[in-house]
């Protein structure tokens, strides 16, 4: 008999929640293992935030059961709250306090909190320590909100669109923090619209649409089943696409320049065709910038799944 799997950090079974006639969540089920970084993806209105807020104990499910660290988020709230960290989609911080004051306040809620000064450094807000929250930029507010979620050394962290409104530098900082959480064995459930974020950070993702689970698996699993019948490559702009089509034994309109320097070949990326493409580029003395074939990006999978169900 195999050893029993360890209890999941988060378990959702048959979850349903409706507001009036709108079914925000409709029969959702998934588990998140301890130490996993799990992404909830879905279009606006898919039920991501409702699901997260039920797990955080803000809302009660109409049907189904949710458990976080084996506890009921509403009934066992006093036992659960010291063990979780939450980042709301927006707001939640006193506009009149300064970042260090706010982190010191939040640190006082927990028995074994991180040092506020250290955490402020690690989210890159040391220079803003004395600026009132209302004067911070959107990305700085997001990073402070993340710091408030982490101050109590939580075992499970809920991040609702953690990088919305961040510049690329702040986004990289946040991604690094999430990776460090994973390295420390913290379970992370995040929602996002950014597919590159999900591919970069998440061990597994659930794509939800219309309150239902549409796909579940690691980013690699979700992308490998869908074999693309396109080759995409990047090179110098302005290449003769008709000539490339002929060189690959295709029609003259089967190769298009999507954007300047981005080319799409509307044919499967067979080894022979890739070799022909390479030969063409060699003969034309063109340097290849990037090449992708045979596997779709998570974004394409996402768009395909959510579009199919919209029909």
């Amino acid at each position, binding site marked *: 008999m195999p050893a029993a799997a360890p209890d999941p950090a988060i378990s959702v079974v048959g979850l349903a929640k409706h507001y009036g006639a709108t079914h925000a969540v409709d029969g959702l089920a998934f588990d998140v293992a301890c130490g996993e970084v799990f992404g909830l993806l879905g279009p606006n209105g898919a039920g991501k935030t409702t699901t997260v807020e039920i797990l*955080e*104990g*803000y809302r009660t499910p109409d049907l189904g059961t949710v458990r976080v660290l084996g506890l009921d988020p509403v009934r066992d709230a*006093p036992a659960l*709250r*010291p063990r*979780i960290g*939450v980042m*709301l989609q*927006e*707001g*939640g*911080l*006193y*506009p*009149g*306090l300064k970042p260090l*004051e706010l982190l*010191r*306040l*939040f640190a*006082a*809620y*927990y028995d074994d909190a991180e040092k506020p000064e250290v955490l402020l450094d690690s989210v890159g807000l040391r220079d803003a320590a004395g600026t009132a929250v209302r004067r911070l930029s959107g990305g700085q507010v997001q990073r402070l909100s993340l710091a*408030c979620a982490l101050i*109590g050394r939580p075992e499970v962290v809920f991040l609702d669109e953690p990088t919305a409104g961040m510049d690329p530098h702040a986004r990289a900082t946040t991604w690094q923090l999430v990776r460090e959480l994973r390295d420390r064995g913290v379970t992370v459930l995040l929602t996002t619209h950014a597919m590159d974020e999900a591919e970069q950070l998440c061990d597994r993702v659930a794509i939800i649409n219309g309150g239902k689970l549409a796909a579940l698996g690691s980013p690699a699993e979700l992308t490998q089943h869908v074999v693309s019948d396109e080759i995409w490559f990047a090179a110098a702009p302005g290449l003769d696409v008709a000539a490339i089509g002929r060189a690959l034994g295709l029609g003259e309109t089967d190769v298009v320049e999507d954007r300047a320097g981005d080319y799409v070949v509307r044919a499967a990326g067979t080894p022979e065709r890739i070799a022909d493409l390479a030969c063409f580029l060699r003969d034309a003395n063109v340097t290849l910038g990037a090449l992708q074939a045979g596997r779709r990006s998570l974004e394409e999978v996402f768009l395909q799944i959510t579009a199919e169900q919209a029909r």
Partner: protein
Amino acid sequence: MRRRAVVAQTRAETLLQLRRGENLIVTLAIPLGILVFFAKVDAISTDFAHPVDFLVPGVLSLAVMAAAMVSLGIATGFERRYGVLKRLGTTPLSRGGLLVAKTATVLVLEILQILLVVAVGVAIGWHVPAGIVPAIGLLLLGTVAFAGIGMLMAGTLRAEANLAAANGLFLVLLFLGGMAYPLAKLPTPLQDFAKALPAAALSETVRAVLASQAFPVGELAVLVAWAIGAPLLAARYFRWEE
């Protein structure tokens, strides 16, 4: 309840109160200004030999109304708007802990107000009477009533509407509260209406105990009714998210 969390919360909320200039105007500058202005400018006639004997009880009541209804209510309304109340809901600071901290914050402000009003009153000729202890008991009862009204508005109205309503109600209750001038100056129908409101009930009972007059039982009943009814309504209708 986590004592450390409640203490930190009280500290932060008190700090925020002191940072809001408009809050200091309503809770300190207006009551003290009314006290000094009406004591020095012979604008009203009262049954009292010295205007300050009439004014100090009224201004103490006004100060409590400003702290418990206006200051607490407006701050809470904006905390609701900015999602602060929602965010605190997932921290180990329970709702009970938050309420204790907010109560303590109001009391800290009221202690400061009472000390300042008494000090300024003494400076312009008021003598602290023996009735100050029961008067403080009545001011606490008034705090419960006004905090209930403030929280009811903060938990049901949009933040901007709550801001306008709290300030507007403050003005109405100042005019109808027997605080800066006697209720008897109002036309009779308006007097009767004013007597059903918590402001006049508070100022009249506080004035009676400070001046050792016959205790107004009817006014006390009105005050107790508000102190029970308003918090119950607030608890029933308060919504944590806007």
